């Protein structure tokens, strides 16, 4: 993975982690049995997967993503991934893109609003 792609994936990690954080806050506010935890966990797992695509040497910390809407943060992550998930890209990126695209769909069905 070249440096530019790695940097983009690091940005995706930050976007996903921020989105997950927001959904967990909403889930905690709901209390026990909140259905939002499914989405929050899904975003966490996507962020984990994205993190594991990167080598140890790549710095993940960077500017915190702007925005307080999980769905739009997820869409931004999806758009970034579409830019780098070219035909020649590693399978991991394609798998991650599919996962994030599903999360965008889930976030837009109302459970995470």
């Amino acid at each position, binding site marked *: 993975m070249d440096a530019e792609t790695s940097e983009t994936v690091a940005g995706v990690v930050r976007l996903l982690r921020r989105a997950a954080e927001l959904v967990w806050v909403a889930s905690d506010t709901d209390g*026990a*049995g909140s*259905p939002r935890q499914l989405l929050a966990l899904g975003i966490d797992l996507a962020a984990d997967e994205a*993190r594991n695509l990167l080598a140890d040497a790549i710095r993940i910390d960077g500017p915190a993503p702007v925005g307080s809407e999980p769905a739009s943060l997820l869409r931004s992550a999806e758009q970034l991934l579409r830019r780098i998930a070219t035909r020649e890209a590693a399978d991991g990126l394609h798998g991650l893109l599919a996962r994030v695209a599903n999360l965008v769909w889930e976030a837009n069905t109302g*459970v995470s609003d």
Partner: protein
Amino acid sequence: MACWHAWRTSYGKRTPVSPTDRRTVGELLADCDALARETLLDATFDRAPAMVRSWNQLVGLAAELWTALPSAPDNRSGSDPMERLRVVGEAIGRSVRAGHWPGQGPTDEHLTQIGDNLSRARHLVERHSRNSQPTTLETQAQLQEFRSELMHTLYVAAHGTAVALGAYVTDLQDRLRTGTRRRQPLAERPTALEITSARGIIARFDGFEQLAAAHLFGITSANPDQTRVTAPFTRLESALAAWEIQAYRTLADRPDPADLVRLARVQALITSTTGILTEAAATNGHIDGAVIRRLTPALEASEAAWNRTAKRWAELTNPASRTDPSLISAASEVRAAISAIATNRTGWATPDQLAARVDLPNTVKSLHLSMIAAVDIAYVVRDTAVDHPGLIAPARIIGMRAQGEAELAIEQGETRYEGVTWTTPHQIAANQLIPLPEPARRGLINLADSVIATTNRAVAAAAQLDTSRLTRSIRSDHATHRGRSFESRQMTRPQSQTPKGPCR
């Protein structure tokens, strides 16, 4: 195969072992079962620590034999029940090796003898199954009988160990009371910590016993024509079994705090799902309303405790933290299975939707089983909090956390923390990663204790959903174990799995 599938002719009588052991696999397994029953009958308090120390090796040898037994060609089982038990046994073994109660010491003669028989049986199986496959129905049935016998041995031995542990705790409590009354020196009395530790191990053996029972007695199908036939694993059941095994594996290998966060969140989700499906089962008339009234608050408390645990471990993560890829994969499958079964476009599925999608009584029983396993996982999380040598955390948040926990401890009489500062100004300024201060570690342990307590309550509340008369709620309290006398030493086996008689 004929030379190793012979059955013994009677129960309870061990065949004397000659210098050249000529026992068949069937006879060896029968001896194991008889020894396990003797273990139960002789389950005195003084044997309990040795039995705990022997447990991991016994389960490991049973798992090796289980693996060596050839599988039927059309085996539809979605997960390996013995693997589930093996990881629990390994976790208990790691805990003992790490110095937790009962610590190092002698092992138990009976359990070691059972292990020797299992080892011998494995050698026989490996020697004779090399050139033959279980093609006939009769052979397949006998292999199934061997598996049942093996599982039954572990089931009885786990029960025997729990009984011995119960007696051990009673003895400790009696000695503690007597010592206090007679004002014996503190060093000569048992400690409250030892009693708590032994109770914790009882809970783990009770959980083990129930997992073995669930396989042995099966989850009966809702179809009356298939009563007492083990239903094929559904996607959710397979996902839960795979998750539990992976959770143990990840926790066994110096986990990253990110692993603990994910693990706790998944456990919280499983607990939520248990609540949703149990309520649906009640709505559809499968479960008594009184059970739900007891179970729902207990599940909510357990879920909240797991979520608090996740948040606290999250404080130990940093941007570079990684989650074990195998854990991610197992968690993803649990999430996908729950999502497919229990949700619709707007949130949780309605009770009617759930009833249409799954066999509610059996699914609820599987989730109850998962809850039993969750208690043991919580013990392993606790051990991780106690023992993990490499826990580090960002100085700012963990400094505040350590201070908060220290103040709580000081209020409760702890004097060691008075006047201690947990971070240096330089560490705070640079937000350095620093080794976890003791009070912060103590906070993680307390949270694990809270998960154990709340999940135990949920297991107890759900006991009436159990698949078998013989499985019980996890009982680690003094009162229930005092009551284990003759009744607790009686074990039966399922009708369908009674050996058919000699075939030699």
